[in-house]
């Protein structure tokens, strides 16, 4: 292994720095804390296995990519398992029936908030929540997810349209 290789200390540094961000990102996608934690664990193990090909400048967005793929793989697998069991499911990531148990003071509004956020498709939801909960600017989100700012804007627009429709419906 070469001198500029990715050491175990580097892995730990990455873990310390990005654990919370990746955990939240995965949670926004899968809406289940325990599952999100499993996926984070797998993500860092996969990062370690890729260590010979890592460039340190891009490790942050690589982590997001790995996390995203791990989520997709998980749901592909779930789909096969559930189809086999003969259950009716909406295929794919984040579409299972669990609602995110966000914590908020105002109980009444909370239900509505969660319902509406649940109606936003995964790609837009993760971006929306990264902006809202993690207070990330569009450029930051784009950088993390290796997307263009325009793509982030597009996803946010979709989220906004859905929120507006849903707010109108219930008011």
């Amino acid at each position: 292994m070469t001198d500029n290789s990715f050491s175990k200390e580097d892995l730990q540094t990455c873990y310390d720095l990005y654990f919370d961000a990746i955990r939240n990102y995965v949670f926004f996608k899968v809406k289940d804390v325990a599952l999100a934690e499993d996926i984070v664990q797998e993500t860092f193990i996969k990062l370690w296995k890729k260590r010979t090909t890592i460039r340190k400048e891009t490790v942050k967005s690589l982590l997001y990519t790995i996390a995203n793929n791990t989520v997709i793989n998980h749901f592909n697998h779930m789909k096969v398992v559930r189809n086999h069991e003969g259950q009716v499911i909406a295929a794919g990531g984040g579409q299972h029936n669990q609602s995110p148990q966000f914590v908020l003071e105002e109980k009444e509004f909370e239900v509505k908030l969660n319902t509406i956020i649940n109606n936003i498709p995964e790609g837009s939801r993760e971006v929306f929540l990264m902006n809202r909960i993690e207070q990330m600017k569009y450029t930051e989100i784009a950088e993390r997810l290796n997307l263009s700012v325009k793509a982030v804007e597009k996803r946010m627009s979709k989220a906004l349209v859905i929120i507006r429709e849903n707010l109108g419906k219930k008011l």
Partner: protein
Amino acid sequence: MEQFEDKYHQYLNGEDAHETEWSDEDKAMQDFLEQASQLKVPGAVKSKAEIWQSITDEIADEPAKEVKTIQWGWICAIAASVMLLLVAGMAFFNSTDNQQELISHIVGEQALEVVALPDGSCVSMNSVSLLSYAKSDEQWNRTLDLKGEAFFQVKKGETFTVNTEFGTVKVLGTSFNVSTRNDVFAVSCKTGRVEVSFKDPSRPSEMLTKGQTVVFEKNEVQRKLTDTEKIGQWYEGTFHYEGRPVMEAFNEIERQYDIELEYEDKTIASRLFEGYFYKEDLNTSLSMICDAMGLSYTVEGRVVTIESNSK
């Protein structure tokens, strides 16, 4: 519609939007957006330290475990394939788990490889595939292990055996295609006769002749007929699908071009695709599938997003 979102983009980005006129409806929106930023991600099930412990436990056994990784599942194998490429020879020869020395051929994304076997048989390996067999002539025995996809042209002779995680393919002298991708095991016979047996010994084996295909998925076996010309045609750059989830074609594109796919709506992935794509350049391949399926795509660096046109 454009304007309604534009002013919010500024607002959400923390830019000053004081000149904007906000209507009552906007106030409700703003209220919602403010409340959303007060949300908190629920507390941990496992602590950060606990998870770190699990990670270090997992990676502590390297590199000996690297070889075992392949057996855990194809997904892990893909992640590890780059790593394996570098250490494959070493790991396989040093591993105490393996009694015999193996020759391994590992093909990564974008690549194809032709392997000539000791008996003169020929294997064309597709991207992201792994083939291994005993190094010594006594143990070779015309037996090999396969993960991924390969097309075999076998010289006539003793029984030739391909082991996969789902079952075994036995032939005398013929040409056939074997594919193990995700949870689907498919064998197509181009010439001669092929016997497919499954991991579960109670499941009867299937005999295939020219132009027959057997697909094993979701614990069920399906037989169908395939145009012999299409079998193994992927090696010439044409990938055929006969009523398969479009995800299989997209997964193939990921392997052929080394890109990442995202679905705007996950239900797209399971729609059935009947047709083919050429491997020329990424846009040609993507549009061949998307045009047929009423989908559209956007390419951003290594990430391709698939969207439904109807939305």
